[in-house]
């Protein structure tokens, strides 16, 4: 892509991000572990961007096929992941509300 980031720089970014991940996640209460897993699941859908980039670089039928499946898979991961996480989280309430009134916006 840009070629401006060295291998060493990338490795440093990777290690720092892993440490940040450890730090942020170890504070999450067990109550939220399922939404958390689902939320993290949607974040790795970022790979859809990789799919878009390779689509732009493809030049033959096989290349286009690989890119098409990657974009399709990635988009499914991102969109589905965030929506299902939101559906779960909107149910967590401090006070009970009238049941069945919460279905619309899901």
């Amino acid at each position, binding site marked *: 892509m*840009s070629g401006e*980031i060295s*291998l060493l720089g*990338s490795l440093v970014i*990777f290690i720092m*991000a892993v440490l*940040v*991940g*450890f730090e*942020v996640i170890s504070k*999450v209460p*067990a*109550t*939220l572990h*399922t*939404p*958390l*897993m*689902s*939320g993290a*699941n*949607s*974040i*790795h*859908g*970022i*790979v*859809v*961007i*990789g*799919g*878009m*980039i*390779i*689509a732009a670089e*493809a*030049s033959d039928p096989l290349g*286009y096929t*690989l*890119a*098409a*499946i*990657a*974009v*399709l*898979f*990635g*988009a*499914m*991961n991102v*969109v589905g*992941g965030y929506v*299902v996480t*939101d559906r*779960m989280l909107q*149910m*967590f*309430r*401090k006070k*009970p509300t009238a049941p069945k009134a919460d279905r619309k916006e899901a």
Partner: protein
Amino acid sequence: MDQATLSTLFILIGALAAGSFVIGLHYMNSPATARNGNLISAGGMTVAVVTTFVYLLLRDCHEGATCAVGGLTSPALIIIVGGFAIGGAVGLFLALRIAMTAMPQLVSLFNAVGGGAAALVALFDYRNIVGGPDESISTVIFVILGVLIGSITFTGSLIASGKLQGLLPGKPIAVPGGVITTAILGAIALVTTILLVLGAGDSPMLELATEIKTVLLVVLLGTALTFGVTMVLPIGGADMPVVISLLNSFTGTAAAMSGFVLESPLLIIAGALVGAAGGILTKLMADAMNRSLLNIMVGGFGGAEGTQADPTAGGGTVRQVGVDDAAIQLAYAQNVIIVPGYGLAVAQAQHAVRELGDILEDRGVIVNYAIHPVAGRMPGHMNVLLAEANVPYPQLKEMDDINPEFPRCDVALVIGANDVTNPVARTDPASPIYGMPILDVDEAKSIIVIKRSMGRGYAGIDNSLYTNPKTGMLFSDAKAGLEQLIAAVKAL
């Protein structure tokens, strides 16, 4: 705008998106802010996707291609727009339609496609660089890792999802050859990896034709896909939460590897965050079951799931309690703790349990819910189910908070939970679950257990709680039993 500025802007906006993922995960610390956290994360993702699209549109067309718009050829444009339309629609449909009890298999399915996408990006990149000046040893290593991890996740998550959905038997399936098969697959992967790495670089240690390298990578791909299947098949259905969490971590790592290949800091950061998050969650879950990750991965533990045991096998006698009796105990108690387990999830009884809780509260009973970390099929799955049934989350107590409350509680109502309440985890060093943190239900003044039969739990051992003189067993399906209890309490 010149190309260098464009590229810089693209990377800077990527940093913004990466920041929103960190903040989003941070907000998941509390149920009160978690939803906003997810929205922030989704916002960052939208910015990242839109920016990438705009970047690709403004970028110069790559050499030798005829571009329709900016840096995109017509097929590329169709792939991106069409891929988002179709993939997004499928994801949206599944996410909106799925029942909360089926959440774990859906997360696993999304995980599978994410891992698959990461593997495809790495594969594509290898085709581009092989035989060219960009085929450096480091890039080849990242490609191999991306293909390996992504493919293992793809098939592994599909198998996990199939097991949870009931498309495949939940019990452990022995792989023909067992350890030998795994060893052979590992050896093939190792040999192809070494050959590919030796064949890379400006002055390779091993001269290999491009065709041979491509074949080697395809062999590696096949091996990884097979390994994903053979890795998950022998693992029992009840260990799937741990496996899904581990595979989630794998997908993050695979995404980070494609980030290295594409030199995209955003992919590296997002992937590493997920890799770390999944790793921590996996460890927390394994700890909650008092088992090592290795022990879980070796598999075969869940063989006794659903086995019928002799009601009196534990040596003690089992006292049955009638619905009316149980209803009187609950209605005239001051303090009731409800202990939901997997049986509640299977019977989809979360709404019934909330109704029972409500009518008890109307009578002035204090009702709390004790949630074991591994109750359900995913860590925290029980919380999601009870939240769906509108139970306010302050009433959902974690194990360490609720355990001191049991001696003060008049009635503990156990619904479809077994191993996580078994006192032998504290008392019997010979027991397979010895040392597992459990809910101290046996310390309650009186215990009512709603259970379909005397069948053993997932660990395949007898539960001494059921022969405790304080315990009354109400043999019934969780939902039917709760509905009978609700009717009986109302009639009082």
